[in-house]
Each structure stands twice: as structure tokens, then as C-alpha cells.
């Protein structure tokens, strides 16, 4: 099953989104929050993100959800810390972090491949709410 990592500048945001996503996940599914800096401050930490990706991977790859700006940069840096095999199986979703994470988690719970999980997360951009 594809794992999902949530990268936010805020630890609380990342954990809150994870908490919501867990409501819709399969029991054995990996959803890892990587929010804030090591000292709890606001920011993104490439090392923490790479650790999260490693924990989220069960062999089928990892979809990474990001919030804003340097979350993308830190995630790209985190990719460089990974071994080649895993690096080929991780991808950032260009999607709104909350809607994308929920959609990705549900898609992954169906046993879909990484490309389908990313496509569903990115499809959440055009989801109408009312």
C-alpha cells in the first residue's frame, strides 16, 4: 500500500491532517506527519521529512503532501537523502494539503499504485465544496 507523508510548516497542522486522514484509512496504512522544526518551531526540516518517507514506505512508494513554499524545497532535499531505490518511488503531489491528503489516503487504501494516488490527490484541487 502506498504511504502518505504530510509536510507542513506547523507540527500541529501536519498532525491534525494525519488525525483526520486516519478516520478514512485502512488499518495497516502508513500516514506519517512531518511538521515543524526539530525544536517545535515553524518551518520544515528535510531530515525529518526523509525519516518520515522511510517510515511510510512499505515497498509500494510514498506520496508526499506539502503546504507552502519551502515545504517543497525541504521535501526535494529530503529526496536526496534517500537511497536510489526509494527515491524512484516517492513523489510530491501538487495538491491542496488537506483535501489532497484525504483523497490520497482513500485512493491508497484501495490498493492503487503511486501514480493513481498522486493523480487523485491532484484531482482534489478542483473539488467543489458548495
Amino acid at each position: 500500500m502506498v504511504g502518505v507523508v504530510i509536510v507542513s510548516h506547523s507540527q500541529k497542522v501536519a498532525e491534525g491532517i494525519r488525525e483526520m486522514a486516519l478516520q478514512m484509512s485502512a488499518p495497516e496504512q502508513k500516514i506519517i506527519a512531518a511538521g515543524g522544526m526539530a525544536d517545535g518551531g515553524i518551518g520544515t526540516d528535510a531530515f525529518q521529512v526523509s525519516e518520515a518517507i522511510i517510515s511510510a514506505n512499505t515497498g509500494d512508494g510514498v506520496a508526499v503532501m506539502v503546504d507552502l513554499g519551502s515545504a517543497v524545497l525541504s521535501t526535494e532535499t529530503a529526496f536526496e537523502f534517500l537511497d536510489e531505490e526509494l527515491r524512484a518511488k516517492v513523489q510530491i503531489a501538487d495538491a491542496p494539503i488537506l483535501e489532497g491528503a484525504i483523497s490520497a489516503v482513500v485512493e491508497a487504501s484501495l490498493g492503487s499504485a503511486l501514480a493513481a494516488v498522486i493523480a487523485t490527490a491532484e484531482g482534489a484541487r478542483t473539488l467543489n465544496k458548495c
Partner: protein
Amino acid sequence: MIEIQVTITNTSGLHARPAAQFVQKAATFKSKVKIAANNKVADGKSILAVMSMGLKQNTQITITTEGEDEKECSKALEDMIKSNFGEE
């Protein structure tokens, strides 16, 4: 092909968690699943399609299942909706 009419009775409608439960249940069957309501049709195995339907409480929907396990699939989805997705 089996077609059934069901009314959404749970308070929050077919959104978020119930939508996820519906799609996850549908995906356990081989049959194709379609939901029709309000002149729209959605793939019952696509979370985005189901959430985009915006199905609120008291909406009547038509579920069409087609495939070798259509009977079981139709029954499982109907039971799930009628049980209000485990909501109070």
C-alpha cells in the same frame, strides 16, 4: 446489471468519511459501480467523483452495479447506507 434506489439517511450525507467508506466497500467488489443523483452520474469507486456529487441527507440515489458479483456488491452498499455508516 442491478439498479437500486436508496435514500441517504445519515446526517452528514455522502461526504468525507462516509464517502471514503462507500468507495472502500465498492472497491472490494469486481463489479462496476455507478451512483446517479441530481442529474449527475459518478464512478462509485472514485473518491473524488463521489465527493463531487455533494450528496446530502435525504437525497435519493440510484446505485447501479454490473459484474460477476453485482448482487453482493449492491446488497453491501445498500446495507451500508441504510445503517447510516455507523453514525448515531
